[in-house]
């Protein structure tokens, strides 16, 4: 009888731990809306799905979960080198470019890579926030001209709810974010 009680207690503990440990599904959401044409696109992508599918795509520049960024290099912009350099840089503003048509600001704020672009001509504002874990994952286990998309997706699963990209223009607004809800109603 005592053995049975012990067994039941252990079973309840194991079951409870399993339920507690089960993490909810994380979703990458994309919402594109155009109030003028009344168009709305909503995408809710489970990250677990992306994590399994992306490594299976071997097409063009995306191979084994890693994307070749040779074109960026050709334009004298080495994304990997920039991320690598930012890793050890202190918090603060790194680049501010102010031109008649646009303002660009790149900074490391609260452990996140933040990019703000304002296009004055098209009246478009772009904000990109990349959590530092994701930025580091992007350049992990890669050669010079690669970004590790699979690793970035895994890193995204472990960050809290966050808005990654917002684009607001006269015509359209775009928002990309991460959370545990399977709808875009937020």
């Amino acid at each position, binding site marked *: 009888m005592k053995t049975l009680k012990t067994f039941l207690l252990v079973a309840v503990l194991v079951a409870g731990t399993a339920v507690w440990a089960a993490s909810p599904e994380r979703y990458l959401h994309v919402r594109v809306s155009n109030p003028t044409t009344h168009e709305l*696109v909503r995408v809710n992508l489970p990250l677990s799905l992306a994590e399994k599918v992306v490594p299976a795509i071997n097409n063009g520049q995306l191979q084994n979960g890693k994307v070749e960024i040779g074109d960026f290099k050709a334009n004298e912009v080495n994304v990997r080198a920039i991320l690598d350099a930012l890793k050890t840089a202190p918090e603060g503003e790194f680049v501010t470019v102010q031109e008649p048509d646009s303002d660009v600001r790149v900074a490391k704020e609260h452990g996140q890579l933040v990019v703000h672009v304002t296009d004055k001509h098209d009246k478009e504002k772009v904000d990109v926030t990349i959590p530092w874990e994701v930025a580091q994952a992007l350049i992990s286990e890669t050669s010079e001209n690669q970004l590790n998309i699979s690793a970035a997706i895994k890193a995204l699963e472990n960050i809290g709810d966050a808005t990654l990209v917002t684009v607001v223009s006269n015509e359209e607004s775009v928002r990309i974010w991460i959370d545990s809800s399977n709808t875009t109603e937020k």
Partner: protein
Amino acid sequence: MILLARIGVGLLGSAMVAGAAVSSEGFISIRVHEKQADGTHLSLIVPAALVPATLHFVPRQHLAEASANLRPYLPIIDAAIPALKECPDGVFVEVSEPEEHVLIRKVGGSIVIDVNDHDDIVHVSVPLRAAQSSIHQIAAANGEM
């Protein structure tokens, strides 16, 4: 009399087992409603388990093009379908325009696609398990895998 009763029970049992086997993989549901006055109205519910069996009777030359088109995507399909099975139910894609509404979602073990546009209302529901085996069968129709 007892013999007849036994035969009856045997037949009933066999029918129930066959029914259970046929419906074990769920049902493919297709509804098409063309909005014009003389448009087609089609409603089809097929046991998904019958699709792989039916594909055996389709001449291979009719599946050749589909097979060639599918083959490059088999690794992606094989990765996606088991992952989709494990995903919670929910809406994956929704497109709303003044004259068009598209909804792609997972309901139970099925992928459900609904399109409502200017011309048609289309509803397709496909059980994931049946989709994978059928896709493999179509891909294999054009020779060696």
